[in-house]
């Protein structure tokens, strides 16, 4: 496996070589400073949770490093993953970087995706879906405002799953609006939107707010 250190990125190679011992050490400059993760680790962490390609400049901003340094590191990481034969792949697509599954792993991933039974929605997705269902047509910003957290990623998932769809743009603001689909009704077992139960009886009387008001944003 040492063979890959002959590749484009010396840093990845040396990181790999030193990996056995230390733990946090392998990143770009982690050596002496104990606490902060290195550039590579930081990029890996961010890209792991990024649900769209992230432009190099955005990464550079978040990490407060020069774009050129970040760009070089990203290229090095991509080469490193390829060299190590990882199942994931870092690609620059549509002006940004994102983790993808490696192409030759596609058959395995397909088997996994189709293998599962029904997929359960996450709690965040259900709540977002509920807001769209009862407030449609509704903009992203509005949904996020209601839930108190940014819902862009969740909305994208709901669109991808066919539960929510584009409903044109707001005449005033130009914001994209969302609505629920007939597939949503089908999954909920309702003939039409008119059959969504009224909210009034469910407005919390005996429900307690279990969220801490002092919670972090």
């Amino acid at each position, binding site marked *: 496996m040492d063979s890959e250190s002959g590749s484009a990125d010396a840093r990845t190679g040396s990181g790999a070589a030193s990996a056995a011992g230390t733990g946090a050490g392998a990143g770009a400059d982690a050596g002496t400073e104990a606490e902060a993760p290195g550039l590579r680790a930081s990029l890996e962490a961010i890209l792991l949770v*990024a649900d769209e390609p992230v432009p190099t400049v955005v990464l550079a901003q978040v990490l407060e490093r020069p774009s050129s340094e970040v760009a070089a590191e990203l290229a090095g990481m991509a080469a490193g993953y390829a060299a190590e034969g990882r199942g994931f792949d870092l690609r620059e697509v549509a002006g940004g970087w994102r983790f993808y599954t490696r192409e030759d792993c596609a058959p395995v991933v397909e088997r996994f995706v189709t293998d599962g*039974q029904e997929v359960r929605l996450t709690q965040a997705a*259900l709540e977002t879906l509920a807001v769209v269902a009862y407030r449609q047509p509704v903009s992203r910003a509005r949904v996020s405002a209601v839930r108190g957290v940014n819902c862009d990623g969740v909305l994208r998932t709901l669109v991808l*799953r066919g539960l929510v769809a584009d409903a044109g743009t707001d005449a005033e603001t130009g914001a994209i609006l969302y609505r629920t689909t007939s597939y949503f009704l089908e999954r909920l077992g309702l003939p039409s939107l008119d059959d969504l139960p009224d909210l009034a009886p469910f*407005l919390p009387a005996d429900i307690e707010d279990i*969220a801490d008001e002092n919670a972090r944003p």
Partner: protein
Amino acid sequence: MIASTDASQGADKTAGCAGFQVHLDVFEGPFDLLLALISKHKLDITEVALSQVTDEFIGYISERADGWDLDQVSYFLVVAATLLDLKAARLLPSGEVEDEEDLALLEARDLLFARLLQYRAYKEVAAIFAARMAAAARRFPRRVPLEPCFAQLLPEVLLGLGPAEFARLAALTLMPKAPPKVSTEHIHTPAISVSEQARKLVGMLRECGRASFRQLTADAAGSYEIVASFLALLDLYADDAVSFDQVTALGELYVTWTGQTGNVERPTESDD
């Protein structure tokens, strides 16, 4: 312990849950309050200075009774009544525990302490939960929409909720977040003050000497008034103005006037 390392890392975020705080407003239940009173006096839970804790507990209830919901108040009453019994038992000359009533009191004490110990245990693991949640929240899971080429292969979505539950969730999600709490609910509940109730009871008891609790509260306008009456009686009891007897557990509770015949002022009460 499992959370020891995580706990320290999450400590800043969970400080509010970690220890008892003697801001009286934070108590949610009677066990909460009792534990806090006990820990405030740095007492071993098994050797509580009962009379002191009882007094403070009752004092706290009478201050706040009008601000709670009925459920909470009833629970408080159960604990208060138990505490009062215990306090009474403690006043008995020691060594006289042949009496069945005394034994019952001892049992009640053990039971109350057992429950308190149990509650304290859950409170402690709840603090561990909070620390673990805070630590877990520092690790973000990968939660990214599938690459489009795979997304179309996905099987059906399972909502896992029926229309009614979905509506309930929507109501909860859409509910405006409560503004920082200044509860004004109690302002709109019928204003029944404990001291007012006490005055009324004193009048009735002076007249008849002895009456059942049922009789005393026969004309109560609602359960709130009954609760207030009971609290008033506890106060009167604390001031040696009445005595209680109850032949069987959960049986009729009789109240006997033992106070002076003069005008009784309830100095500790404020009308609220």
